[in-house]
């Protein structure tokens, strides 16, 4: 395996300033992504997992600069994406594409499947119209659709087929790096497996690098090589797939795993379900953000914010007690 990092994200922060509740109030800020760093090697899948509101999607959008990050750097194949100007960024987008959660709302309902898949080629000026046509046909076959379906509109496809069109659109400009933002959450269980297998097959064929966002631990375990668990804008645990599941360290990850329903009663962890909801990211709890729900919290956790430390080779945990 080639071990040069394809994508390197360093200390990424994305903060959203909200309207002041009244004229003299302090401006409230949502710390959606607060100092996230990770690397992905070429041809591997990096998973970001967490509850809703933990900042996993904002991280993904900030990496592509679909949301402007507040600070930090995103280095894709040696280029700092955060330093590019608008025109450079537009052209650089051919290297980085995205697949969204809901395939229907991420396509123009008035464009045909062919036009949708062709649009990145047109925007980026890749090839002659003739070449673009051939590419669309090739892509349709690649994702398991028939070339004659290019003239159909999104509503004429099923959910799974629509997601295939989105995959084909993301592949069109031949990117190295694709963000998959909950690509199977909106699909039926039987269709999920078809799309997951398709993503794996395409990765092998084109040596693609994936950033895979999901809230579903079982899907993440299945598809990702390396996994980071996020909580309130920060990574709390980061390691490879095997050590995360076999040697889980952070109490939040443990709780998350215990909450996943399984078909095998023997696997059921003894850990009690997590109490309460995720706190608001506007005023996150001081110290360790997780202390308000943590069964092990001590006085130190309330005061001091734990840093992400490498406690075992390639196993990073942000917890005072790990």
């Amino acid at each position: 395996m080639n071990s040069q990092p394809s994508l390197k994200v360093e200390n990424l922060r994305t903060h959203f300033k909200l309207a002041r509740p009244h004229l003299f109030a302090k401006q409230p800020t949502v710390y959606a992504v607060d100092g996230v760093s990770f690397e992905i090697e070429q041809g591997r899948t990096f998973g970001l997992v967490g509850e809703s509101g933990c900042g996993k999607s904002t991280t993904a959008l900030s990496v592509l600069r679909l949301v402007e990050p507040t600070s930090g750097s995103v280095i894709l194949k040696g280029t700092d994406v955060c330093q590019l100007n608008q025109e450079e960024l537009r052209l650089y987008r051919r290297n980085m594409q995205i697949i969204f959660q809901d395939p229907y709302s991420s396509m123009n309902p008035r464009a045909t499947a062919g036009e949708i898949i062709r649009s990145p080629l047109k925007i980026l000026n890749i090839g002659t119209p003739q070449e673009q046509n051939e590419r669309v046909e090739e892509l349709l076959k690649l994702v398991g659709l028939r070339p004659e379906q290019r003239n159909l509109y999104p509503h004429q496809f099923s959910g799974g087929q629509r997601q295939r069109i989105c995959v084909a659109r993301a592949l069109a400009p031949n990117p190295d790096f694709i963000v998959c933002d909950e690509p199977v959450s909106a699909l039926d269980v039987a269709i999920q497996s078809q799309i997951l297998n398709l993503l794996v097959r395409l990765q092998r064929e084109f040596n693609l690098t994936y950033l895979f966002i999901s809230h579903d631990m079982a899907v993440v375990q299945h598809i990702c090589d390396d996994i980071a668990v996020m909580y309130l804008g920060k990574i709390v645990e980061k390691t490879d797939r095997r050590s995360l599941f076999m040697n889980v360290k952070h109490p939040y990850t443990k709780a998350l795993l215990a909450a996943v329903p399984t078909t095998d009663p023997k696997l059921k962890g003894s850990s009690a379900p997590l109490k309460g909801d995720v706190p608001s990211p506007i005023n996150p709890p001081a110290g360790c953000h997780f202390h308000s729900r943590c069964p092990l919290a001590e006085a130190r956790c309330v005061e001091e914010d734990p840093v992400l430390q490498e406690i075992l080779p390639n196993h990073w945990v942000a917890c005072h007690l790990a």
Partner: protein
Amino acid sequence: MRQEPLLQVKGLCVDFSTKKGNVRVLNHLDLHLMPGEALGIVGESGCGKSMTALSIMQLIPVPPGNISAGQILLNDIDLLQLKEAQMQDIRGNEISMIFQEPMTSLNPVFTIGSQVSENIRRHQETTRAEAKEKTIQMLDAVGIPVPELRIHQYPHELSGGMRQRVMIAMALSCQPSVLIADEPTTALDVTIQAQIFDLLRQIQREMKTSVILITHDMSVIAEFADRVVVMYAGRKVEEGLVRDIIDNSRHPYTKGLINCVPFLKKDPGTERVELNEIPGVVPNMAQLGSGCSFAPRCDYVTDQCYEKTPPEVQVGKSHYAYCWHIEEDT
């Protein structure tokens, strides 16, 4: 111990008239629910599982919907023969339902206290003060902190998990004998989902409520249900105790449904295995033939499958499958 079923659905057929003609969304469905039991109904979208729940509650819009045949017996009373006014006494009292999206099923312009007490005052002879007290008691029972203050809040002031708890409090306020939960946790995070299932399990134990759980998630079924009905295209394809279905499923569709989902493993291994796929998509309900509706996607299909409705085959104690090819398979 031999018990009489609490709720029985016999030969239920539901039709919807559409522009393209009559569509049969439920086709001779038989179900039964024992007292205190948790029955899971599982299937892909469009298989008729929510339609089953709505038929039991008689909440199907008529027209275009129409219950064309069958019986729904609750303690030997056929709900389909009741007048709407009589049904209103049963809904929310004998049978309650919780829905998938708690935000859209709560009224945004009333406080949660008034919405829970409305149900109590509709079905029980109480004063306002008693109803209020009962409301606080119910909200407390479903794990809502400081219920005395919460009753004055509106749905938008609560989180998704809290709203679902309010829905559960409302559904249980009159101690129903049957609770139908239609995908109660699909819109919630896994940690909140675990909390809600713990709550439902506790209620089922303490109040002796029978629960029908409708979901597409086999692992939720495995954790919660005692018995499972697997549905496909408006028909039952397999029925049995939860361990029989999960460990020893006999219908090709059930097998496919279980094998195509990635399940969490203790040791994920280093190699990535390919998931099984069920080829194709759910059939269009308007174009179902007379044979087995799963035939076009099935690995074991023969000519017979396309022509005749598959028979009921008993494959174990209270384990039934509806397929032409059960024997060859073992």
